[in-house]
């Protein structure tokens, strides 16, 4: 399985390491090469410096043959752009965007994008910790939308 990850923060690097350890072909992209120090020493994929919202950068990173695409930068809007580029222009079958603003996350979910929202997930988990019912859909990636249209 080939995966492209945009954004080498804690989540991006963690996911890249996990997939690489499991033997998958991983390419991680970040605008800052220093971010790649977050990767484990035994990371066996490729690390590419570049802007993950730039179609040329993604093509050079081999995105057209990828099975999975994860947009995990710090910027919700950058992730929304990169993910839609990956889905609609590069035709990657499985695309997920991290969108931490719950309002924007909900909007993009209704537009058919698979979205992961750290804010809703944490609010859900912590409110359940206090005995509140929480939001059972908080961890869903909008499963129906994961398949490319």
């Amino acid at each position, binding site marked *: 399985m080939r995966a492209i990850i945009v954004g080498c923060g804690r989540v991006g690097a963690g996911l890249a390491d996990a997939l690489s350890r499991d033997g998958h072909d991983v390419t991680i992209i970040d605008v800052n090469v220093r971010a790649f120090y977050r990767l484990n020493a035994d990371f066996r994929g490729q690390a590419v410096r570049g802007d993950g919202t*730039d179609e040329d950068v993604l093509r050079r990173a081999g995105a057209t043959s990828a099975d999975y695409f994860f947009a995990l930068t710090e910027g919700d809007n950058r992730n929304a*752009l990169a993910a*839609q580029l990956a889905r609609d222009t590069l035709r990657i079958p499985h695309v997920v965007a991290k969108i931490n603003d719950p309002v924007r996350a909900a909007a993009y979910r209704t537009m058919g994008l698979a979205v992961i929202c750290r804010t809703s997930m944490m609010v859900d988990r912590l409110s359940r910790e206090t005995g509140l019912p929480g939001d059972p859909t908080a961890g869903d990636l909008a499963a129906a939308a994961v398949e490319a249209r």
Partner: protein
Amino acid sequence: MFIIIVGGGKVGYYLTRELLASGHEVVLLEKDPRRAAEIAHEIGSVVLNRDGCEGKHLAEAGANRASIVTAVTGDDEDNLVVCQMAKHHFDVPRTIARVNSPRNEALFRKLGVDEVINPTRIALGAIEQDIPVHDLLHLAQLSTGELELVEAQIESDSPAAGHASRDLTLPDGCMLFVVIRGDVAQAVRPDTTFEPGDKLVALSRTDCQDDVRRMLIGERTEQPTA
């Protein structure tokens, strides 16, 4: 008409002023407090110091009754999100985005932005009109420095157009290699006939490039004066 403008840079600022002057109702969203205060000082209370990418701020600005939402910040991703939120969340009839990377233009249209304005492409178009096409493109200089790899674009009025390779007598030491037609490259054979639009890759001695140019693409056009 009620128009929401997101982004208080130069474009957003002048856009707001012009629209107000022609009697429209305008709200300008600018997330930087200092810039927002600056504009408010000059053009009054139409400025909201809010991030237009957030749904609740668009709602506060009155997006559900806006005829047009236009996003003119310097960041393509922000402009896309503003327009998509306006379209899908507030059913705004017309969304307009400024896009800086020409590569994003088609994607934005596909993603539902009604009007995409690309200053880069507009400037590029204006510049390209001023570049003389009747010239050889220098691809590479070979090690000795006396030979150069050049590309010639054949136009309908080029002397080589309609002629076969064997009919062209190039200076000694110069030769035609490859013709690129559409996106396909093929070797030049004696019976290859050149057509307008062809790109010809040739090896030329540095001292006879003028002759090569004249034979393949014709006289140099007037350079535009600045």
